């Protein structure tokens, strides 16, 4: 897994609430057997017109969004299905962090395993960020995982929660399976006790 330490980038504002994983990547793209190459299908039904051309009104297609690594999303982002294709598509597009007031559980868990940082902030901080980014699309935001902080807009300094273990894994680029495999002996013992 890619390390996450600190990130400074302009951002894409997507204020809609309850964006579900079917919007992040519709089910018809789940027939793949690989996790790569899903960036083109991200937000597909909002992003492309009927004839397949980019919808100029969708924020991801605006020139100002290109190269952004931060998504400022509405509340309860990633609700719905457990498809890990959702973070794969977000990472495939180039996002490394999503700022929201809340994330769905499975989406959050999946994101943390793919180097995509869910940054949960208060409604006040969220509004300041969203307003600033919508007003000026070149606004730079810095997310620092070590200090669990979001800074920018001159005076903004906010913190976000993350459990110690996920933080450690992201900072070091450790994948969790390696950690789990280290408990082989305890797992064997547990299995023996139960039979």
């Amino acid at each position: 897994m890619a390390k996450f330490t600190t990130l400074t980038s302009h951002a894409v504002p997507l204020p809609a609430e309850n964006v579900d994983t079917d919007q992040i990547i519709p089910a018809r793209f789940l027939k793949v057997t690989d996790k790569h190459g899903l960036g083109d299908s991200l937000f597909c039904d909002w992003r492309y017109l009927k004839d397949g051309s980019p919808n100029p009104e969708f924020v991801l297609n605006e020139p100002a969004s290109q190269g952004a690594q931060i998504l400022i999303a509405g509340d309860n982002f990633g609700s719905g299905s457990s498809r890990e294709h959702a973070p794969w598509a977000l990472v495939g597009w180039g996002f490394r962090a999503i700022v929201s007031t809340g994330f769905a559980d499975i989406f959050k868990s999946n994101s943390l395993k793919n180097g995509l940082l869910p940054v949960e902030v208060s409604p006040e901080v969220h509004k300041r960020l969203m307003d600033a980014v919508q007003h000026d699309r070149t606004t730079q935001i810095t997310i620092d995982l070590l200090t669990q902080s979001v800074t920018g807009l001159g005076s903004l300094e906010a913190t976000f929660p993350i459990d110690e273990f996920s933080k450690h894994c992201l900072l070091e680029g450790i994948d969790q399976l390696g950690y789990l495999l280290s408990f082989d002996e305890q797992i064997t013992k547990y299995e023996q006790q139960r039979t």
Partner: protein
Amino acid sequence: MEPRTLFQKVWDDHVVVQEPERPAVLYIDLHLIHEVTSPQAFTGLRERGIKVRRPDKTVATMDHSTPTDPRALKVIDDQAKVQLAMLESNCEEFGIQCYSLGDSRNGIVHVIGPERGFTQPGKTIVCGDSHTSTHGAFGALAFGIGTSEVEHVLATQCLLQRKPKTLEVRVEGKLMPGVTAKDIILALCAKIGTGGATGYVIEYTGSAIENLDMDGRMTVCNMSIEAGARAGMIAPDETAFAYLDGREFAPKGADWDAAVERWKQLRTDEGATYDKTVIIDANKLEPMITYGTNPGMGMGISESMPAANALDSGSQRAAYEKALRYMDLEPGQPLAGQKIDVVFIGSCTNSRISDLRLAAGVFSGRKVAKGVRTLVVPGSHDIKKQAEAEGLDRIFKEAGAEWREPGCSMCIAMNGDNLEPGQYAVSTSNRNFEGRQGKGGRTFLASPLTAAAAAITGEVTDPRSLLLS
């Protein structure tokens, strides 16, 4: 010992290691897999040179992209064919039981788990599918996981989990005729919203829950995720034991007796507390229907959709207006009488025999309205056989509905069963997200009774008007 909840007991029983400041290493008793969320996990295993630790605790089925047209069981495209073939070859390589397309034991993963007796009280059950919460109806701790976690479980039979909080949803009272388990869970989603139970495991309690049969309990637990909870649980009782008794993989003989004794200990102790409680009065529930683009946007069928200015915050109002624009509906209006194009009766939420019996009761002696396409998709081959033995298939076909082969079908619309852009459907499935049942399609979620009533009248209809006549 401290009094404990059902959840706490199952959790405690499965913690292999709990280091400070670390998630628990939680042992998984049953791992269900399907074609869509497993290929990348098997690839990961191969890249690391790891075997599946417990193929004997892993069961595979094909359901998401499998065809349901009985006239020509044709897989939709080459990509889906490759994915299905990959599940088969992965299962063969790692020694996992796979109920492939065409196998008489095949069906939707959350239907066949309980049906074959794999699902049992007190077990930890996971699957790369958010509706794994279904199995909690038996007092199992069951939840959906992503593909990375599918790989973790294949490799170690364990998951890293932080302990969730507990939410009691107490449903007291007696459901009126025409009101079903589906209406209970849609009412919960409407009450607390799609993020209302995020971070919690729900335990459903109360007389209305105790009076549900297992099919109804599975419907309720199934949609726990639609309220944001990863898992929903119900204390196992005689109803659950009677369901499991004699099932293929349920314990037999003396093992059965011992298991039942153990399972009886799982119910929440007197004095145990939950982090939060939500109360629903079953007496007051009416058939529910959703109007928007998430399962929380629902109401009683006699009600009107909210006026736009009835919503608290600006962002809620924006979300509501966006949803109604997609649905092409007017705020403040009732939904009853809304013309529909398609009725879908099926999915891991409502494709079991009790659901089909309810629907058949409405279809019996009636005809599907002209121009309405109605699909009835049983959850498994066992259910299909049972329904045919009871003559339900004849009732559906005589009414003008399509009697299909088992699968997820139009719930996720990956297999060619889908809505056309702009079409309205009343569906017994679990999600009304934009495009969920086909790009541009519009979904009203409801019970099998309400869906069947809509098929007959061609519009959103209170099923009680047909039950009484």
